[in-house]
């Protein structure tokens, strides 16, 4: 899980954040002013500053926020001037939107705010539905509105073209001001809360932002999503009373507190109506003491009452947003907040420390105990000067208005009774009740006053809001007492001096713990299992030291001197004690070791079924000391005892087929691969299966002399279950004319769970999980169920993956009731899987295996292709009396493997230059596509630092879906519309290249995936056709045309030798048909780059393969027939000089 942040504001209005991976509060240095409140989401943080404006801080990402503006230029043909902008009166505007209804000339487009900048000027889009148009981008039609084509015909009377311009959000990582709704009558915001991102995934990054004004009105910010982070406008939401504070959860819960102490709950919040429709009132937890504060999560509501008591609302979920009743909790808090995963944070009323509620789980939402977060602030020693700087700059930043407030502080400081001053200073302000008593020493009373003080008067007069946070006054009050013998003249003239003194004299500075005023966990992704280093309370400075040294010993343990010493001495010992005595007899003779067990076996003859068998693995030492073994399956055949056996050195792969009903795995030999009929076995328990798999795997590796991590040349593949396999290629694998048959390849499993993996020849390997998380290979081996010896100790990390499980709810229409869940007896189940053949209800549906756990509830999936109605129903096209709704539930796998996460951008494709780098520190080009379709270029990737350092965004006019870089830095990509693009001028000097060249896809086909080898470019289209790009030369790298190679192809991987491997959709074996099979193209050579025929390897159930690490040149076989000059050499030199790759440097 990538690190995320908890945001807090201290009593001085300084904003800090704490990383889930961190151990100190980091001050938000950028803050030019003090803040009252902040509310965080994962991608941004909103806040109300002391100037009462709302500010937005969008967290920087390597992916820029770009918005594409478009407008259409329309023309009509007339006999005199040809096409011109003289349109008929009935026609559309000369410049319009796509519908033609809205007039939008180029100069009508303005930047929405000062936070945006134009990326470039307007230009004509020359890509029309995946096809390149003529230079000027016109598309033609008979008339508006009509069907457009890219070709001008005799009947073409009108034409139009699309103009594009991008604007970019530039105020990343700084606080950008958001205009308030009513500048003229100042009713500034006093509370703000964001959430709602789980209501709908469309549009991406959608947020609900609720705000409360001092007069108790509620406002909703409309139109916030990824491409419009600021939102578009404030809309007032009517409320049944005056609201004090509001809280919006990640889902559809919104609660608010009224001044009178009751609570209101927003009803009717749905995917289509994120603002909700009405309010329902809920009584205060305590009849005598009103509520002051509420905090909501997904299925949880917490509240505080005026006496600082904490309350938990029982029985809240999205069906019953009001819950059932209040439960009193331990603790006295002044503010409370619910973060992600319903985790709870609060600020203690006595000590003003931030508390984390421990033990909050989905089954126990109220948690167990409060635990104070106790970590130092960054630069605690030097923070006073730092804050001085920021305050000084604040003084400079704000003109007149703020200066007045600052001098107001000065007065405050020079006065011994700040409260009185407050009243005097805020001359236009309301009469703050009981303000004279607000300088007691009891922290508790102060805390109570904090809420009282921000109350506006009931009359609704404008409040001087500047220092409405009483915490600030307290601090200054103390300061005044400690000795602000400052000259009033001095302070009034130089405001920053006053604040400087404030900081210097800060009574809570270095020695005391910080005093917090506000907390927001909306961006903080923790759960009850998270390992947090936040609670080291005893002696922070020494503890940080020791923790650091511990982490140091973890990271550098590999090279620690003590370890080195042990390795060296053991080697020395072996030399000393054994090297001269090898002729001595061993005390213990080697013998056979047998492990037995019982299992079920999917028998070889019809009718196929599971039968009980005895299973045994006999292991013995071979003649050269290598281990070998035989496995036996003893079964009964018509009362007769029989057995089946297989030599361990013949096994090519062990595939776990774990599913919820049986713990099965498959064993293949070359023969079984040809038959497409493996030995299928089922163990009694998952644990037993894993024990057997680990043992058999070790045994297989022993017999083949394979140990340690995969080599740099290794071929990686992934099954449809996400299991990762790796095979060591022999030089003969790509030999001509007799390569090693690929059914003989030995595959071993590597821990982890991925959807795709890509590698290159220097051993850089990246993977992408089902949840689109990017992972980099760490150089270890094992993990997962491989424990002990089959796994390396180092470089194995926890890996998680999330995928969705789908079920269908089906309904049939009948004339009386319309659609109901009453089907006909012959119908599919009312709750079913995709096929409709199996009944799958919400309750009986289990995660894919015991390794997976549910992490969300069933929810309707609206994002189905073909679209749904408002309730998510899809109508069966061919059978309209039937509707179904797609229900989706996410489940999560936690495993281990040699993978480390590369946060934060989610990816859908990645490619690494398959060239051999000259040294470990040479930068290796790596390109990727984000799961939103952005093209990215990774910087800082070397063999030593395979994770790289940061992303460089490469602009495109539309989302992309596949990318591949060839050995000569040729970058090819596939756009979502199915057309191909070639990236020009990519070189080590210009790693991102300069522009995209549009390459039309093969006629009537939408391309899906591309792979580029040394010179070959191959693509796969949506219909499973494999295409080879003809005519690619150094001077014309885009090539000339697509040539068809094969059909039934799901995926292609072209290696650095231009070798072609695919995942084939259907392969017929002698016993059965397999889908998802690894195949190798035979006969590929420079004169025949398309190859001749397929050789079939492991499968089915395979999803992905990459051969881009294998640059092992085959042995040069000189057959007699090939020695005469007329025949081409097996591998003639590459004809293109600048595409030549030094492939010998990679072998070591």
């Amino acid at each position, binding site marked *: 899980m990538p690190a995320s942040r908890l945001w807090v504001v201290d009593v001085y209005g300084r904003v800090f954040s704490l990383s889930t991976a961190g151990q100190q509060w980091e001050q938000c240095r950028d803050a030019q002013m003090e803040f009252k409140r902040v509310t965080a989401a994962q991608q941004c943080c909103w806040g109300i500053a002391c100037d009462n404006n709302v500010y937005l801080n969008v967290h920087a990402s390597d992916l820029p926020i770009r918005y594409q503006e478009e407008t259409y230029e329309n023309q009509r043909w007339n006999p005199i001037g040809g096409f011109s902008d003289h349109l008929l009166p009935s026609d559309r505007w000369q410049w319009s939107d796509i519908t033609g209804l809205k007039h939008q000339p180029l100069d009508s487009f303005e930047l929405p705010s000062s936070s945006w900048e134009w990326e470039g000027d307007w230009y004509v889009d020359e890509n029309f539905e995946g096809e390149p148009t003529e230079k000027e981008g016109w598309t033609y039609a008979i008339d508006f509105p009509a069907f457009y084509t890219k070709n001008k015909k005799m009947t073409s009377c009108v034409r139009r073209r699309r103009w594009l311009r991008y604007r970019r959000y530039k105020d990343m990582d700084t606080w950008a001001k958001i205009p308030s709704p009513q500048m003229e009558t100042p009713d500034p915001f006093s509370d703000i809360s964001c959430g709602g991102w789980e209501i709908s995934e469309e549009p991406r990054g959608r947020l609900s932002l609720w705000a409360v004004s001092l007069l108790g009105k509620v406002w909703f910010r409309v139109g916030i999503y990824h491409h419009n982070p600021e939102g578009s406008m404030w809309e007032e939401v009517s409320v049944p009373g005056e609201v004090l504070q509001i809280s919006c959860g990640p889902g559809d819960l919104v609660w608010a507190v009224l001044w009178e102490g009751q609570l209101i709950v927003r009803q009717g919040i749905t995917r289509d109506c994120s603002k909700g429709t009405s309010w329902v009132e809920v009584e205060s937890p305590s009849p005598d003491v009103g509520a002051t504060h509420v905090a909501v999560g997904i299925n949880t509501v917490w509240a505080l009452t005026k006496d600082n008591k904490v309350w938990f609302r029982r029985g809240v979920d999205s069906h019953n947003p009001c819950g059932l009743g209040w439960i009193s909790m331990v603790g006295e808090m002044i503010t409370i907040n619910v973060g992600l995963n319903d985790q709870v944070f609060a600020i203690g009323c006595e000590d003003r420390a931030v508390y984390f509620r421990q033990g909050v789980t989905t089954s126990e939402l109220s948690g167990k105990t409060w635990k104070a977060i106790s970590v130092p602030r960054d630069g605690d020693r030097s923070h006073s000067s730092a804050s001085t700087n920021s305050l000084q700059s604040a003084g400079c930043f704000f003109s007149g208005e703020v200066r007045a407030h600052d001098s107001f502080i000065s007065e405050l400081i020079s006065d011994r009774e700040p409260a009185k001053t407050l009243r005097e200073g805020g001359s236009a302000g309301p009469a703050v009740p009981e303000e004279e008593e607000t300088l007691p020493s009891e922290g508790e009373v102060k805390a109570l006053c904090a809420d009282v003080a921000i109350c506006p008067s009931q009359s609704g007069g404008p409040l001087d809001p500047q220092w409405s946070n009483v915490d600030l006054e307290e601090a200054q009050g103390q300061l005044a007492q400690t000795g602000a013998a400052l000259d009033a003249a001095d302070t009034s003239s130089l405001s920053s001096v006053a604040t400087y003194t404030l900081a210097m004299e800060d009574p809570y500075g270095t020695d005391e713990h910080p005093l917090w005023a506000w907390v927001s966990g909306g961006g903080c992704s923790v759960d009850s299992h998270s*390992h947090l280093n936040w609670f080291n309370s005893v002696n922070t400075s020494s*503890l940080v030291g*020791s*923790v650091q040294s*511990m982490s140091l*010993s973890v990271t550098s343990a*590999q*090279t620690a*001197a*003590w*370890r*080195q*010493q*042990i*390795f060296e*001495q*053991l*080697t*020395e*010992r*072996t030399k*000393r*004690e*054994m090297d*001269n*005595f090898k002729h*001595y*007899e*061993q*005390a*213990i003779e*080697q*013998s056979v*070791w047998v492990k037995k067990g019982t299992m079920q076996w999917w028998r070889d003859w019809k009718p196929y079924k599971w039968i009980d068998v005895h299973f045994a693995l006999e*292991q013995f030492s071979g003649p050269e000391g290598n*281990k070998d073994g035989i496995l036996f399956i003893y079964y009964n055949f018509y009362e007769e005892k029989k057995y089946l056996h297989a030599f361990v050195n013949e096994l090519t792969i062990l595939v776990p087929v774990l599913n919820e009903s049986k713990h099965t795995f498959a064993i293949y030999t070359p023969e079984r691969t040809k038959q497409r009929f493996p030995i299928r076995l089922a163990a009694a328990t998952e644990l037993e299966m894993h*024990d057997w798999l*680990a*043992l058999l795997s*070790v045994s297989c590796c*022993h017999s083949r002399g394979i140990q*340690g991590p995969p080599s740099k040349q290794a071929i990686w593949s992934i099954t449809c279950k996400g299991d990762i396999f790796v095979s060591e290629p022999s030089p003969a694998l790509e030999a001509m004319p007799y390569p090693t048959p690929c059914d003989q390849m030995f595959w071993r499993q590597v821990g982890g769970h991925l959807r795709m993996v890509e590698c290159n020849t220097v051993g850089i390997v990246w993977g992408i999980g089902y949840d689109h998380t990017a992972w980099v290979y760490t*150089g270890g081996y094992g993990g997962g169920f491989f*424990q*002990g*010896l089959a796994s*390396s*100790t*180092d470089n194995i990390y926890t890996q998680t993956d999330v995928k969705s499980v789908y079920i269908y709810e089906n309904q049939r229409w009948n004339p009386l009731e319309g659609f109901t869940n009453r089907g006909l007896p012959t119908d599919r189940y009312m709750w079913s899987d995709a096929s409709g053949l199996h009944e799958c209800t919400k309750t009986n549906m289990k995660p894919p295996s015991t390794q997976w756990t549910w992490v969300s509830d069933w929810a309707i999936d609206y994002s189905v292709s073909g679209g749904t109605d408002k309730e998510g129903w899809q109508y069966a096209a061919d059978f309209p009396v039937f509707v179904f709704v797609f229900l989706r539930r996410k489940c999560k796998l936690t495993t281990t493997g040699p993978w480390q996460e590369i946060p934060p951008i989610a990816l859908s494709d990645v490619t690494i230059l398959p060239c051999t780098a000259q040294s*470990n520190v040479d930068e290796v080009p790596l390109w990727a596509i984000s799961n939103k379709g952005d093209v990215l270029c990774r910087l800082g990737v070397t063999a*030593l630092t395979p994770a790289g350092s940061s992303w460089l965004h490469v602009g495109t006019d539309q989302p992309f879906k596949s990318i591949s870089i060839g050995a000569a830095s040729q970058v090819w990509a596939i756009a979502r519309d199915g057309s191909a693009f070639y990236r020009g001028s990519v070189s080590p000097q210009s790693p991102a290249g300069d522009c995209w060249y549009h390459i039309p896809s093969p006629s009537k086909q939408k391309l899906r995936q591309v792979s580029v080898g040394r010179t070959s470019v191959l693509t796969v289209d949506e219909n499973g056709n494999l295409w080879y790009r003809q005519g690619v030369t150094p001077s014309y790298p885009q090539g000339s045309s697509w040539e068809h190679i094969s059909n039934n192809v799901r995926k292609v991987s072209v290696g650095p030798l231009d070798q072609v491997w695919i995942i084939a959709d259907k392969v017929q074996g002698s016993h059965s048909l397999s889908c998802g099979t690894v195949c190798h193209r035979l006969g590929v050579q420079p004169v025949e780059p398309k190859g001749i025929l397929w050789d079939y390897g492991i499968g089915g159930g395979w999803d992905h393969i990459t051969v881009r690490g294998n640059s092992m040149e085959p042995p040069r076989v000189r057959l007699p027939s090939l020695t005469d000059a007329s025949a081409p050499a097996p591998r003639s030199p590459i004809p293109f000089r600048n595409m030549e790759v030094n492939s010998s440097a990679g072998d*070591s």
Partner: protein
Amino acid sequence: MILETFMADDKDVLRDVWFGRIPTSFTLNQDEVTEREAEPYYLLLPRVSYLTLVTDKVKKHFLKVMRAEDVEEMWFEYEGTPLKWHYPIGVLFDLHASNTVLPWSITVHFKNFPDSDLLHCPSSSVVEAHFMSSIKEADALKHKSQVVNDMQKKDHKQLWMGLQNDKFDQFWAMNRKLMEYPTEEGGFRYIPFRIYQTMSDRPFIQRLFRPVSPEGNVHTLGDLMKEMDPAALPNDGEPKRYQVVIHGIEPLLETPLQWLSEHLSHPDNFLHICVIPTPTD
């Protein structure tokens, strides 16, 4: 390429420890009655095994030259010291014979069994009982016996058979379970260790010692020695008087104890540490 030489894996240490061998020459005691002269017998002894478990061949060899009535229980002696079979072979060698010329010269006796010094060992089942009790004791220290008690009889057998037949994989397939611990605790409850000293009358030191201090600091070999046997550590400025030897090597004193326990323990799951005088020459 420099990088790769550093990449030795901790798994290799387990292998090196398991496959450690001491070249030994067995000579029949002069006083034994023989029918003809007995040739010495040469053997590679596994450091992690026990003398009586791996000397069937030795016994067979000498019995060929002896009359049955002259043969009592076999025992071994090195330079006048009877060798305790219930200590691992490597410990016996490090304790009594390290820094001497190889092969290790052991004298074989068939009479005058030194009852005061040695335990009787009529069969390998006695070794098995001793071995298994050590494992159970170690797990009591490491996991309050939870792991070993959760194992089945056949699992115990697998550990023993692994040792008896020198099957590294078979042994470690099971032993890894005994080496697990909750990551949040940073190590075992207590480290099972024994410190042997040649110069002491006590057989060995064995007390409770945790891998991590209450403050959360990782305990090292040096911390353990300081607590258990401070005399073994060199004083500032003085020449080193003692060597702290495990499996014939001297790990640095800053080596984390938990790591040592996981990687340099004998199959009985104890870390056997020998404190021997530094050779003077």
